[in-house]
């Protein structure tokens, strides 16, 4: 007996909110970036659950694209973080507030 898609969807929602919470609670760029990855994965899970419940393979295609784009995003994001660290010797977001108006 396979669990219904609804169960997977609930799991996806919980995971997403946990990612959001992690983003707000954490204070270093790297972990916040990881939290973003969690949110992306929650989205993937929701896509697959809906693909299953609607019987459409497009959902899986989208998931593949999301993973590819996430990989590209991770590479660039980490490169930027490395650059910030080289210049500022810190990855604490509270200390990076040059955009203050």
């Amino acid at each position, binding site marked *: *007996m*396979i669990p219904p898609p*609804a*169960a*997977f*969807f*609930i799991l*996806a*929602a*919980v*995971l*997403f*909110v*946990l*990612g*959001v*919470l*992690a983003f*707000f*609670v954490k*204070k270093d760029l*790297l*972990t916040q*970036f*990881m*939290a973003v*990855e*969690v949110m992306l*994965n929650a989205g*993937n*899970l929701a896509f*697959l*659950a*809906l*693909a*299953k*419940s*609607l*019987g459409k*393979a*497009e959902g*899986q*295609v989208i*998931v*593949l694209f999301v*993973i*590819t784009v*996430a*990989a*590209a995003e*991770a*590479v*660039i994001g*980490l*490169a*930027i973080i*490395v*650059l910030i*660290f080289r210049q500022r010797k810190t*990855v604490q977001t509270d200390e990076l507030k040059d955009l203050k108006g």
Partner: protein
Amino acid sequence: MAWAVFLILSFLCIGSVAAMILSRNQAHNALFLVLSFSSLGGLFGLLDAPFAAAVQVLVYAGAIMVLFLFAIMMFNLRGELPVRVKKTRLAFTVGLGTILLAELLLAGRKLVLGSPGAASAAGGDTARLGHFLFSDYLYAFEITSLLILAALVGALALAGKREGS
């Protein structure tokens, strides 16, 4: 049986994310995330998406998280990071998160209820997936390859710069 697997995997998944929130060590965080993403791969398998599951484990749990670990090692931040979050702020965030969760569940209910109930078994077919990728989504597929190339070059240009140069 499947229910048991589902429950175990979702417990692992949620638990490791929660542990990530509570832990103060970046390297541990990354490892928790590997665990979380691997169990997500298993859940993908349960959803009749074996290809997505494989990619999830290979790309996410493998490649991306290893990248994170490399970055952490480069920063060489062994020490514990301080976690000082104001109580009011935490409460506010948790409140907002609850609202978001409620909204998401509501939206999901609408979607799942609105769909034709008869969930066909189709979808697990990797061959069909490949067919989609190389016909209907061919342009998008090619564009992602360009995107990855651009990301590669961009990362080299950004992080490859030596200090002082």
